[in-house]
């Protein structure tokens, strides 16, 4: 399924600014309720999948500032995470079609492991006296969060979103 061209009018669709503002609210509440799991990234992945590069650009900047701002580590963790995510996305795209559900499953797993590596690395590098969770239960929960939120958001965005340039 190809992405809708920018500026196209589709009746009954939610305009992109409203859609992504709603998404931000949902993702931050998801993070609050789940105890810090990342719900912002799936929105970025949906934009990558649907080829909305302009949205990917501003959303990356905003997400980095939000994640770094509400986080407690020195600036750079979210930058590294998203840089790795883009690199992985480009590499994985060679192997699997991004629309494929298997891609979402595998990429979510890779991303969860990457998130854990980046966070535990940053804690260790910055020598903060905080305990990192044991890896596999944490990765499994983050994976589940990514798969459900990403899959759900992709379906919802195709059905109700994707209206106009952002």
């Amino acid at each position, binding site marked *: 399924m190809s992405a809708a061209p920018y500026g196209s009018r589709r009746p009954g669709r939610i305009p992109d600014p409203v859609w992504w503002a709603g998404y931000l609210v949902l993702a931050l509440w998801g993070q609050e309720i789940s105890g810090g799991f990342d719900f912002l990234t799936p929105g970025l992945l949906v934009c990558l999948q649907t080829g909305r590069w302009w949205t990917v650009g501003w959303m990356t900047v905003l997400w980095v500032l939000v994640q770094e701002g509400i986080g407690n580590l020195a*600036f750079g963790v979210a930058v590294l995470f998203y840089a790795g995510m883009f690199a992985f996305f480009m590499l994985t795209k060679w192997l699997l079609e991004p629309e494929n559900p298997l891609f979402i499953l595998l990429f979510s797993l890779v991303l969860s492991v990457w998130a854990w590596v980046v966070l535990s690395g940053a804690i260790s590098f910055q020598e903060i006296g905080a305990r990192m969770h044991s890896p596999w239960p944490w990765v499994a929960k983050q994976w589940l969060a990514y798969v459900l939120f990403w899959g759900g958001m992709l379906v919802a965005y195709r059905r109700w979103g994707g209206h106009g340039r952002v």
Partner: protein
Amino acid sequence: MSPRFKYLLLFFFLPLFLYFSMYTWNWKTGYLDRLAAMVGLDVAGWVMAPGRWLQNNVDEFWSRYVYLVGVRQENEDLTQRVREMELELARVSEKAKSADRLTSLLRFSPEANWEMRGGRVIGQRLGPNAILETLLIDLGSAHGVRANDPVISPRGVVGRIAKPGMHFSSVLLLSDSTSRIPVITSDGRVPAIVQGQGPGAFLEVKFIPRNDPVAPGEILISSGQGGVFPKGIPVARVVEVTPADVSLFQKVYAEPLLALRYYEELLVLSRTDGYDPGQPMASADAVQPAANSTAGQVAPATASAKAAEKSTNATAKSTNATADTPDEPAVNASKPAASGAEPSKPARHPVRKRS
């Protein structure tokens, strides 16, 4: 140069170099940290505030108008409690008057002026993986809040401002493992350091010498050393005391006086005399915590160790030097083992969980 090497250089080493350059530059200047705090905390605050407001109102409506079980009994209990408190108040106010008189007689310097602001808790577990125990409150630098300002509730210390944003701030809780507060015991007046050990765990009370009197049930109050917290605010209650076998210090554990995560409104104290505990004073930098270029940011233990070393050296000349910022260990001249001030590392002994 082979094409493969060029690609490696272009797509791996160059981004890596740029990343570390940005990281180092920000580590020195703190510009990006401040920008992220201003934008991130405000975005999160404005996004979450309406939801929290709605939740509070629904909760209030439910508890006031729908869920009224036990209200009558509670009313009777509270009436009885008010009577008891009135008697207690009368007794304590007499003591306070005499304390004022004695203080003026002894020519104590007056307490620093503190300003109090009420804030509402907006978020609790935000940030990537919620690494540190923090809260998001709706007070920021626009309201006069600064990094390291104490955050309290009517029952005791909650924590301190870790990162002030424009209209919202992040509060580092007392229970976080990077939090340290200098205290004294209420009965024995023994100085110590209270260190958090993470969610649900007891607080560790450090540097109480083996022969000093401390007992379970004793209240720990802030000692005021380090300049972050005013003196005399209840911090925790001692729950366990284990005499030392070979160590110079007793193993003491305490619990916070309040459920830190269940408060909706908190009070932020700010100094009105302009003193900033995060910055060294020109005349007294030896006895104050060392400067922290990224105020509110958790600094690495290496920086803490240097600051501690500086403070420790200063103790040879000065009387007492304690730091109660989360990133700087406390040093007490009267405690020999405290001279090797501990860096911000996790406790090595098993964490005692609260039941």
